[in-house]
């Protein structure tokens, strides 16, 4: 038995933070088993590695200095004291529980149970923790379809793609359809900007998703499974391809699985558009009914489940009666959130439903970067909304969040501090939906464009009160008169910012001022004569030569901004080391 084991987290975020170097370096150690896994969700701390001595986790290292870590670990392997060698850079109070309490405080990991711990490239690792055992019970008919559906129904699992449709109901509908061919599709077209749950699950624990998909195929009587995954996720695709190949070689699958790569269209997350895309057509949504469960892929009964939904299924099946014990009201179980933006502990977390936004952001996510003030949290991506500090005590629950104008959505959560302008954020989302509108419905195609133009006017100081009125009217029309979810929810970022941050709109329109100093047309820069030391760094950096050298009253050489030339790019503000460039 090797004395020590090291797990290096090698997700996309880890690799880009340099975990390959860390892994290579550890692999040269003697008597140490080194295992590469995927992201454990601690993206903000990457590159990370967990260090085990005699089968017990003794620490997590942030690995800022690999050589030093190597020496420490070698020292421990040689029988030296753990504390003196690892303590400085690890979260470690001597107990395994203490370590995990700190790292995963407030979380309950169901979907993320294996991500970061198992080697995603090794099917035996998954099998060693009981993976594929339930599927094998299904395949040998030890468990009936009805039993599977019963457990699922009692668990209260709802679709994690955004809409929250009860999963058992969906499966039952497909089971009841009689057809020679039936399909189950896994929707991994995670297009929401600010969301990366599906990527992490596919990269870290592909076999759970595949097993979930196969259990779905068994329970519904489906004949084939498809996995639709974004082409922007090369590592997830690589992991998944390997996982399917291994599962085929081991003969653990119930029906064939095929991967289809998405080609970069946000609207393909909508189920009828996704089906059109797999059929090789333009990914445009169509009228429902007929619903895919009646006429889906190639006209055959089809259901579509999200990655996260499927990844929870094997756990639910292996632990009947457990999932529904967590959660709140009609939102049972847990939800994975991707914490991003100005949050300290950004990354992937899984929490029970019913937790408040405040707990999620300040306890689980450890608060705002640089201890600035919280301003807003954007939940649900382009279909969601921005919520202010006064709503931080809202519970995370499908129904409660919907009332506030935001949605649980797929689980992207972007935190903003005082340096973000809410009008700019609304414009950002509208520019996204305008680009991604497939063009089928007039109100989505033209309406979002007009809303975007209105917002452009506001951030560029060309607005009056009519602009607000126009935004209200267009929001209403676009949400009511679009066919699919993309159009229906596209105005949400505008509606919620108008509802909760109307003051900022007024500042832009009436005072022609951007309070956060983001909208460059409304921001003016000047130099604090007392603070300027005349280093001329800003002068060097200015792209339009708007900064000139002048003399202060006392004769000291300082900089000054020629406002007629200044384009308000803010570069001088960024480079100044003495905070002498003022923003107004």
């Amino acid at each position, binding site marked *: 038995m090797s004395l020590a084991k090291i797990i290096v987290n090698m997700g996309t975020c880890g690799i*880009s933070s340099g975990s390959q170097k860390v892994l290579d370096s550890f692999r040269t150690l003697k008597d140490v088993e080194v295992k590469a896994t995927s992201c454990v969700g601690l993206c903000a701390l990457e590159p990370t590695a967990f260090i085990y001595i005699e089968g017990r986790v003794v620490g997590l290292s942030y690995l800022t200095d690999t050589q030093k870590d190597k020496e420490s670990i070698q020292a421990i392997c040689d029988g030296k004291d753990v504390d003196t060698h690892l303590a400085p850079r690890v979260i470690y109070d001597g107990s395994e529980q203490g370590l995990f309490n700190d790292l995963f405080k407030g979380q309950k990991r169901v979907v993320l149970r294996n991500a970061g711990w198992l080697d995603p490239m090794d099917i035996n690792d998954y099998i060693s923790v009981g993976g594929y055992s339930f599927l094998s019970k299904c395949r040998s008919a030890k468990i009936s379809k009805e039993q599977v559906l019963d457990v699922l129904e009692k668990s209260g699992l709802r679709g994690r793609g955004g809409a929250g449709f009860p999963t058992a109901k969906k499966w039952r509908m497909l089971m009841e359809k009689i057809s020679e061919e039936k399909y189950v599709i896994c929707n991994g077209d995670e297009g929401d900007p600010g969301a990366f749950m599906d990527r992490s699950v596919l990269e870290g624990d592909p076999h759970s998703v595949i097993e979930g998909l196969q259990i779905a195929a068994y329970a519904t009587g489906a004949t084939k499974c498809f996995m639709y995954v974004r082409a*922007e996720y090369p590592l997830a695709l690589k992991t998944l391809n390997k996982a399917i190949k291994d599962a085929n070689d081991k003969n653990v699958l119930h029906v064939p699985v095929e991967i*289809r790569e998405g080609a970069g269209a946000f609207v393909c997350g909508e189920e009828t558009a996704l089906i059109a895309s797999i059929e090789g057509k333009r990914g445009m949504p169509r009228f429902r009914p007929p619903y895919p469960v009646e006429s889906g892929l190639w006209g055959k009964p089809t259901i579509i489940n999200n990655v996260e939904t499927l990844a929870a299924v094997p756990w639910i099946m292996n632990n009947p009666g457990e999932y529904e014990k967590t959660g709140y009201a009609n939102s049972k179980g847990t939800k994975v959130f991707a914490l991003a933006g100005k949050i300290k502990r950004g*990354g992937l977390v899984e929490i029970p439903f019913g937790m408040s936004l405040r707990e999620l952001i300040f306890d689980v996510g450890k608060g705002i970067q640089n201890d600035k003030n919280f301003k807003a949290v954007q939940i649900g991506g382009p279909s969601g909304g921005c919520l202010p500090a006064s709503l931080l005590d809202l519970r995370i629950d499908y129904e409660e969040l919907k009332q506030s104008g935001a949605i649980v959505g797929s689980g992207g959560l972007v935190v903003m501090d005082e340096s973000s302008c809410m009008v700019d954020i609304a414009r950002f989302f509208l520019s996204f939906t305008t680009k991604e509108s497939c063009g089928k419905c007039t109100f989505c195609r033209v309406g979002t464009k007009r809303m975007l133009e209105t917002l452009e006017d506001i951030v560029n100081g060309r607005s009056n009160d009519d602009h607000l009125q126009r935004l209200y009217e267009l929001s209403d029309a676009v949400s009511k008169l679009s066919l699919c979810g993309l159009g229906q929810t596209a105005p949400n970022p505008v509606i919620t910012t108008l509802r909760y941050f109307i003051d900022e709109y007024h500042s832009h329109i009436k005072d022609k001022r951007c309070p956060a100093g983001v909208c460059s047309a409304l921001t003016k820069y000047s130099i604090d004569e007392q603070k300027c030391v005349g280093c001329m760094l800003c002068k060097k950096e200015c792209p339009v030569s708007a900064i000139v050298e002048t003399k202060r009253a006392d004769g000291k050489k300082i900089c000054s901004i020629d406002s007629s030339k200044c384009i308000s790019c*803010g570069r001088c503000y960024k480079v100044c080391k003495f905070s002498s460039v003022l923003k107004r």
Partner: protein
Amino acid sequence: MTDIDIHGGLIKQLQDAQAKFGYVSQHEVKRISKEFNIAESEIYGVITFYSQFRLKPLGKHTIKVCRGTACHVSGSLELVTEVRELLGLLDGEDTTKDLRFTLEEVACLGCCSLAPAVMINKDVFGKVNRDKLSKILESYK
């Protein structure tokens, strides 16, 4: 199911063509059209619908600047301007004249905790700023 579906569908065919040549050439469109009996107009309809497909040759390295929400609040718009400046791209251009780099703005790379993120070919770089950017680009010269 038609003939092309057995071969992974039209999108798969186009992705393979693009993987081989860096873009979908007229020649490839004609080939697919003939081989699977699909009208060229229909193929072009699909190509232009999806942002992944390109009808023009690509630079040797593709720079994808993430324009997701987290990257946006961390200044990715300025990053785009900076890449354009560093590469000397004029308005409307996305590939350098020496065909070394192509710049793309993408919706979200899913690396939000590394915002602002940039992907060059298949490597992701996180927390990119102007200085880091020029160093990274240098390594791809």
